[in-house]
């Protein structure tokens, strides 16, 4: 199904949703938000893209695929937990450096862990949504 109104609206709303998901991710440490909600909003953006342009094009839009996203996210979260071990502190202790970057503030392992959560949530949600959408399409073709 392709609708001109829907695809035009999607082109406007999709960047807004992605921007908002990153905004939720970055400020999650001090205010409501964080990797989980941000990931859900990003997954909703891709689900909207899949409705407007079809599941195949949405899969192409995520270049590396949905399953690798889960792996990369888990790896990021695990590595951020490994960092404090080098300073003889327990696994997953938050490590803060004094190096300050614009927008994200002080460099720390909390944000890396949250980014990992973000990627895992996007990957899992989209894997489920795409699988369901494709099963639905196949069912239709059988009818």
């Amino acid at each position: 199904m392709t609708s001109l109104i829907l695809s035009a609206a999607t082109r406007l709303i999709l960047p807004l949703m992605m921007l908002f998901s990153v905004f939720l991710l970055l400020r999650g440490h001090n205010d409501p938000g964080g990797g989980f909600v941000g990931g859900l909003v990003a997954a909703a953006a891709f689900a909207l893209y899949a409705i407007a342009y079809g599941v195949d094009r949405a899969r192409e839009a995520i270049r590396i695929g949905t399953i690798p996203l889960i792996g990369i996210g888990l790896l990021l979260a695990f590595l951020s937990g490994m960092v404090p071990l080098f300073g003889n502190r327990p696994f997953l202790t938050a490590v803060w450096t004094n190096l300050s970057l614009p927008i994200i503030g002080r460099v720390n392992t909390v944000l890396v862990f949250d980014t990992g959560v973000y990627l895992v949530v996007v990957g899992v949600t989209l894997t489920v949504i795409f699988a369901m959408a494709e099963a639905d399409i196949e069912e239709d073709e059988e009818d």
Partner: protein
Amino acid sequence: MTLTDLALYIILPILSVALILAVSRLIRGPKMPDRVVALDLMVTLGMGLIAVYAIATDQAVFLDVATVLALISFLGTTAFAYYLQRRPEA
């Protein structure tokens, strides 16, 4: 009358009544499209309620909830429309 009073005693009751009317349409709605439109209206009213509540409590954080709701409700309505288009008999 302050802005908080206005929000609490006038705007919130009006929105609540509108929400009740929308729910009644959701339950009665003879056809599926009526229910989808009622659901969309309920989300829009919810956004209004959150915005008014943000004014009443002076908490700007609630406005972000309204933003997320606005972005997600568009997706929800679109998904329902997609579903209805493929199963028009419902």
